[in-house]
């Protein structure tokens, strides 16, 4: 059922409401699965999209529920690419000094997931927010 599909893509626009996390995650996971990405890679992608959006909601938008978030998911031969644009604080998470990870203290799990599970992650500050790009390779 899976055709090798370059350039298939979907786009989503949502507001920064945590209630939207599951809908976005499932759209991304289901789309990625139909491009032939393995189940475990699909799960990784879904979790990292969730974590990135949760950080945008909690940190970049400081809990505001009406901030715009746009996503574009692209299927490529060798990987699935995700672009996430927000119009929040524009703070680059990779530039925020992090405490060494302590499993018994709250925080730090989200970025750790993204770093461990994604093959690429980049934050490109925009004049009015942030562009986050992540990718997961096909093997």
């Amino acid at each position, binding site marked *: 059922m899976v055709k090798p599909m370059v350039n298939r893509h979907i786009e989503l626009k949502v507001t920064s409401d*945590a209630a939207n*996390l*599951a809908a976005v995650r499932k759209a991304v996971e289901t789309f990625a699965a139909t491009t032939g990405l393995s189940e475990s890679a699909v799960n990784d992608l879904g*979790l990292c999209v969730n*974590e990135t959006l949760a950080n945008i909601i909690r940190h970049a938008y400081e809990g505001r529920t009406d901030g715009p978030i746009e996503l574009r998911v692209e299927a490529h031969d060798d990987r699935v690419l995700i672009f996430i644009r927000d119009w929040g604080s524009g703070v680059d998470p990779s530039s925020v000094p992090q405490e060494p990870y302590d*499993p018994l203290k709250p*925080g730090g799990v989200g970025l750790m997931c993204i770093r461990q*599970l994604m093959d690429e992650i980049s934050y490109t500050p925009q004049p009015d927010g942030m562009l986050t790009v992540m990718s997961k390779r096909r093997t």
Partner: protein
Amino acid sequence: MVPTVRQQDDAVIASLAGEIDLHSSPEVRKVLLDLLAKHQPKKLVLNLGDVPYMDSSAIAVLVESLQKVRKSGGKVYLTNLQPRVKGLLEIARLDTIFVIVPGEADALKK
């Protein structure tokens, strides 16, 4: 996300159900903290068999519960983990901090 809760000796066994993300974790947090305040159990057994997915906000709730139980000298057992939940606990390096066992019975007889 109303958990099924039962007590057995010094253990409180709660079964959670559904995907838990930043949207639903505040409710799970409230439920668990209320439970702990009420019972102060020596053993908290969380059956996660019906939780196919959780994110880091759910992990934070589990850790907060763990801290409370530990304060009163107790332990937290996680049972019936689905693969995605297990994977996340491993990434968060919590798989050796919680006592992870296959089923409720394994937690109760420890």
